[in-house]
């Protein structure tokens, strides 16, 4: 399904040119060059501390909460400069959703978790909100499991359910990009599988960027793979190519498990 019709070539959603970033005097990322295609799944792989999460957090400007973080270069979403000082980050984060490593549902009901985001941005009637919550939960394939207890606490759900709820919550504000920072690393294999299947269905509608430490996961779910090492983007391209014919020795060593 991902192999789009030839008449509709894949568009570039996010363009990265000469992108570098620092925490204080520590340079976390060095001159990245990358294009993230629209409505496909791009996986960031690489050893811990290689900068892939840092980069992810620049795409929705979560790094703004860290005073010492700064960046240079080009980072565009459909031609819009994401590093601009005048950018409305509140609006950006509505368009670029994020799912975190550890499920972080709010200590509220399941319903209120999903409704929290939409309510921030505009006022809905009860019926509209009900509809939106149901759709979001359906999209995150958790509706059937929670439809009878929408008003009980989200903290009563299992870890895997909580993570799918967090995905539903992110979807509810209608983003076009979904950033996922190791979304399965705190989950058991069965929940991981459920999330992976979910991610694949979501790629029809959203541009997905997923950071993962799990090589098999990257191979299973992604269309594109980017390999980060020590703050540099070593290699990127179609996942098949990276896995079968990596151009770079480091990439090959990493994905075959020889280091990292």
């Amino acid at each position: 399904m991902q192999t789009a019709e030839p008449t509709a070539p894949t568009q570039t959603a996010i363009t990265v040119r000469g992108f570098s970033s620092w925490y204080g005097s520590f340079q976390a990322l060095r001159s990245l060059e990358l294009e993230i295609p629209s409505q496909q799944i791009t996986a960031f792989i690489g050893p811990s501390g290689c900068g892939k999460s840092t980069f992810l957090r620049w795409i929705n400007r979560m790094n703004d909460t860290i005073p010492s973080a700064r960046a240079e270069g080009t980072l565009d979403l459909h031609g819009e400069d994401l590093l601009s000082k005048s950018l409305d980050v509140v609006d950006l984060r509505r368009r670029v959703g994020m799912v975190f490593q550890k499920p972080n549902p709010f200590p509220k009901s399941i319903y209120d978790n999903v409704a929290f985001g939409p309510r921030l941005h505009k006022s809905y009637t009860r019926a509209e909100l009900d509809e939106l919550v149901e759709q979001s939960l359906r999209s995150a394939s958790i509706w059937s499991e929670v439809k009878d207890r929408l008003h009980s606490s989200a903290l009563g759900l299992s870890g895997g359910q909580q993570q799918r709820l967090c995905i539903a919550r992110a979807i509810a504000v209608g983003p076009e990009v979904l950033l996922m920072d190791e979304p399965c690393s705190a989950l058991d294999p069965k929940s991981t599988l459920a999330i992976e299947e979910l991610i694949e269905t979501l790629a029809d509608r959203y541009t997905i960027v997923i950071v993962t430490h799990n090589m098999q996961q990257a191979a299973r779910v992604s269309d594109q793979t980017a390999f980060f090492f020590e703050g540099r983007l070593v290699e990127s391209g179609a996942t098949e190519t990276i896995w079968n014919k990596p151009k770079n020795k480091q990439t090959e060593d990493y994905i075959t498990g020889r280091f990292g």
Partner: protein
Amino acid sequence: MAAVRSASTRLLANRAFLTLCLAATSIAMLVLAILLLAIFVQGWSGLSWDFLTGLPSRKADKAGVFVALMGSLWVCAICGLLALPLGVATAVFLEEFAQKTRFTRIVQTNIMNLAGVPSIVYGILGLTAFARMFGAFGTNVEDAITLGSEESLFFLRIPFGSSVLAGGLTLMLVILPVVIIATQEALRAVPGSLRAGAFALGATRWQTVWGITLPAAVPGIMTGAILAMSRAIGESAPLLVLGGALFVSGAPENLMSDFAVLPLQIYNWASRPQESFHAIAASAIILQLVVLFLFNGIAVFIRQKLQKPLQ
């Protein structure tokens, strides 16, 4: 190589330490038990509806705590209504909004220090700032400005003098640092991942605080606030300095009324030579304890009720 210690030696040490801890606990419990027993023996018989609703009197068997009880409730209500919003807002600013600069560090250190200042110092401050208003309106006893009639609920005069409003404001100063620190700790206990989750959905800082952080911190804030209130209701020194009257004929009618409070009433009765007044002082202490336990009970209740959705 260190000598191997036999299991029996270690077990013995373990038991000795346990005994020591138990003994320490027992001493504390014993003192409390003796205190309570003494007060109850002396004061239980004096507790009656008449005592509760009675006005002050020169005769012990006719004297009641009504005026002092109402005074305490008025002062505490004013104190709580002012200290809670002010303290919570300050804590929210310091924890959630302010950049960590030299200025906020100084403010933070000051608040910590203020929490340790003896309450009598606040009494002096209250006397200067609220009761006399720095003498800005003259030093005589005459009020500089009055608003409304003296009998109405909305009577106001400046300076405040030894009124319930001045008393409530002074106690507010006493508990403000406690409320701020308790709220800051409650806010710090809210996981950063929740804030990040809200920011990632496009919430502004204010929406995050109001929608996520504050609700999650409410149990901690309420517990801290009510413990602070229990402190306020037991304070006597600052109100004594302020001129909280030891003999007032009636319960407060408006913010400018003179007032008595339970601790001062107890002090007044206990310091008299007659045995019969010591007995009603004990009765008043029991009443004060009941009010205290009630406050703490509310704190526990709120915490349990609000923490349920968090589990």
